[in-house]
């Protein structure tokens, strides 16, 4: 049995599944239920200074549904905790006392002034919490007050606040990053420079999920008006995975621990975040959609997969795919594939045909009897047909062996690797002539 225990910036937890700072970790009642359900750790809902903020009293979520009302993405206009600081601290202390083996991280967001951090850090320390997470991510409400992503978008502030925290507490400091920025490596480097023990990402993405066409207002709509909110859930996973990998393969932050967040819903999502460099993952939307029980599937699935692959511990998985994440210019242009349609598996829906004929390269022939065949002379190997085919593995991409002629280009497939940097069409090519 694979060992799922983790030690992340010195914080131990029985598994890498943490709940992200959000409604699931808003108060004692929820967190106890989460721990009883098997979650390895929580990042407590972000605390601020008193007087505590207030939330809207109308709807705070918008949603993007897939078929059968499957939740693909949620956005929210919730703020940080709307309860008094003392209440939260008392509850954190009580829970940590009763669940000493679980990771208890406290998320914080106070004004960008050192006195504020100096004031709150000792109070958090006193609860026995294992670490803190700096919320530089919240894209709505708090940012307008100069906190959250307003700080997270300015690397200098990140570095400064991180340094204050490192100077004022013995607890490990995790810096939570906002994705609402052009280059995620900049804030990560700033956190690193400020002495952060780790980064966590992503927080939510600025968004409007939908427009109420009767009221002519964005949703969620509060008395006829709406505002942008933070987007999360399965729909944001691709963005999160990329950002995690960017940090993991940036030489400046290569060994900075990462807690991966954004759309984690199943064991496979967890494995993917780990492979791209995360040491733990955090979950919010999936728990909000299905409840805490999903952690059972994650734990069973991850350990089964690790056993099958021969990975004994989480450490062995973390960053495993990073050597294979590269830049476009280094991709092998001599790797040639063609789409292949398995006629026995084909159900003749013709979606590959519509996709290729209308929007790609006219490389699929529709023959009598609704037989669909790839025309190698035209196929550029884009993969679109594979993606739109409703039958798994019906269309696959087959590599042309070295020495064979690609009927599209008339060129013989070369055995050696060659990329854009040396391609004759590249004006900047460093050709070896």
């Amino acid at each position: 049995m694979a060992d799922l225990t983790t030690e992340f910036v010195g914080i131990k937890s029985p598994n890498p599944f943490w709940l992200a700072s959000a409604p699931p970790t808003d108060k004692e009642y929820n967190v106890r239920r989460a721990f009883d359900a098997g979650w390895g750790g929580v990042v407590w809902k972000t605390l601020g200074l008193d007087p505590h903020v207030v939330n809207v009293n109308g709807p705070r979520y918008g949603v993007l549904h897939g078929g059968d009302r499957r939740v693909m993405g949620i956005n929210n206009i919730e703020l940080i905790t709307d309860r008094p600081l003392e209440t939260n601290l008392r509850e954190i202390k009580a829970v940590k006392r009763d669940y000493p083996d679980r990771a208890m991280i406290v998320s914080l967001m106070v004004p960008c002034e050192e006195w504020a951090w100096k004031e709150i850090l000792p109070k958090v320390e006193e609860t026995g919490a294992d670490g803190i997470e700096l919320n530089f991510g919240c894209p709505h409400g708090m940012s307008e007050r100069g906190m959250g992503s307003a700080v997270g978008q300015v690397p200098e502030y990140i570095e400064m606040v991180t340094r204050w925290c490192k100077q004022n507490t013995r607890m490990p400091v995790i810096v939570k990053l906002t994705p609402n920025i052009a280059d995620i490596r900049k804030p990560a480097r700033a956190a690193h420079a400020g002495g952060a023990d780790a980064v966590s990402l992503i927080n939510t993405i600025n968004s409007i999920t939908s427009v109420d066409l009767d009221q002519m207002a964005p949703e969620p709509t509060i008395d006829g008006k709406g505002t942008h909110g933070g987007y999360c859930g399965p729909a944001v996973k691709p963005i999160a995975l990329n950002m995690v990998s960017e940090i993991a393969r940036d030489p400046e932050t290569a060994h900075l621990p990462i807690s991966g967040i954004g759309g984690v819903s199943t064991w496979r999502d967890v494995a993917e975040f780990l492979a791209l460099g995360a040491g733990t993952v955090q979950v919010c939307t999936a728990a909000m959609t299905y409840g805490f029980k999903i952690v059972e599937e994650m734990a069973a699935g991850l350990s089964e997969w690790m056993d099958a692959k021969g990975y004994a511990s989480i450490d062995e998985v973390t960053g495993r795919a990073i050597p294979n994440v590269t830049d476009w210019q280094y991709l092998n242009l001599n790797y040639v594939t063609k789409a292949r349609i398995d006629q026995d598996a084909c159900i003749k829906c013709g979606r590959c045909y519509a996709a290729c004929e209308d929007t790609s390269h006219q490389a699929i022939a529709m023959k009598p009897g609704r037989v669909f065949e790839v025309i190698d002379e035209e196929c550029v190997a884009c993969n679109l047909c594979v993606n739109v085919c409703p039958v798994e593995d019906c269309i696959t991409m087959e590599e042309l062996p070295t020495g064979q002629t690609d009927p599209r280009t008339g060129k013989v497939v070369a055995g050696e690797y060659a990329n854009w940097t040396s391609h004759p069409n590249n004006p900047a090519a460093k050709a070896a002539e």
Partner: protein
Amino acid sequence: MTQSELTPGIVSGRLPEDRLESNFSDLHPAYDEHEAAVAADRCYFCYDAPCVTACPTEIDIPLFIRQISTGMDEAAAKTIFEQNILGGMCARVCPTENLCEQACVREAAEGKPVEIGRLQRHATDSLMERNVHPFTRGAPTGKRIAVVGAGPAGLACAHRLAMKGHDVVLFDSRSKAGGLNEFGIASYKTPNDFAQAEVDWLLQIGGIEVELGKRLGEGLSIEDLTDQYDAVFLGIGLAGVNALRAPGEDKEEVRDAVNFIAELRQTSDLSMLPIGRHVVVVGGGMTAVDAAVQSKLLGAEEVTMVYRRGRDRMAASVFEQDLAASKGVRIITHAQPVAVHGNGSVREVEFEYTKDGPNGLEPTGETFRLAADQLFKAIGQRLEGAPAGMMLSDGKITVTGAGRTSVEKVWAGGDCAAGGDDLTVTAVAEGRDAAEDIHAQLMG
């Protein structure tokens, strides 16, 4: 109540009211909004979709399903009605398992097609329940056209002609319009008087004058019609019924299944409709199944359907056969009636087993008898009342192209015309196409 399924003879009220009501309620209840959304989501929006090809009226199925999934039920209904003005009835009665749903790629993929019929019902109901008619008439053309037979073929033809701006007179020998929609289709497929509601809704197009109780051949001749009208369409269905040709066929309580069904469809109180304790139905088509199933649903203790060939040759679809079996109808195949016994009324029917030989069906010599208070004959309908001199093939009116008969100015479609399956949807397609052809010819 004193009668039960075991009461001997032919009596009414074998079942309590509540059981009758549930027995004859909707076979495929309507979807609610969410069910429809989930069902619609399964459609792959195939390229040049095979379901469309499989539909005799060629409804753009992927398009209407996509319209449902985007919350536009009424737009979906319009997509359907543009091709098939009786899309509401077809949604209820089409043997989709042999048509669109059989062609659905998800049938090939997982044996579970998109439920096209029920989705079509969902869409069409949305407009019809609000009693909204989606079409308006074109500018008047001054042409007058006679349509004979107000079944699906005649109705579809009349509607399309009216839409084009022609004036239509729709004749039918019966007292109600609708044809077999009103007098034939099983009750549980079209409860709540849907057939008449649909006719009324369809007539909202305007320009269609309905003349009931007018029979072609009785005071109404084809010559008069061709003289007085610019064109004539015949959609007179199959008014005749084939005989058993077995001795004793003339005994009492030996009836044509279609008459029994018509009586049933017109009965307002099913608890007053008498049915035998033992019922035998001869035949293997939709009529036989409907007669047998409805006998059972009325409370007959024992209903047996006997067909002379094997199951695979039955005209009733596998779905219909299974439906009959699930309602408790016993199906005997490879047996044909040889005599009807009884003193005045039928008491027993004698059958002989058959087998498939090199020259077709052969009797085996082995016989058996079934007790019968009633015997329903459902061995096929045939054309009756076709105008003299009109060319026929295989007993039906010969047509070329979109329903042109051998007689100048006369078109035909539906069951009475040769070619095509005897289905509601085929009748609609043929009526519609004949209308288009008439229009093209009249307007040159």
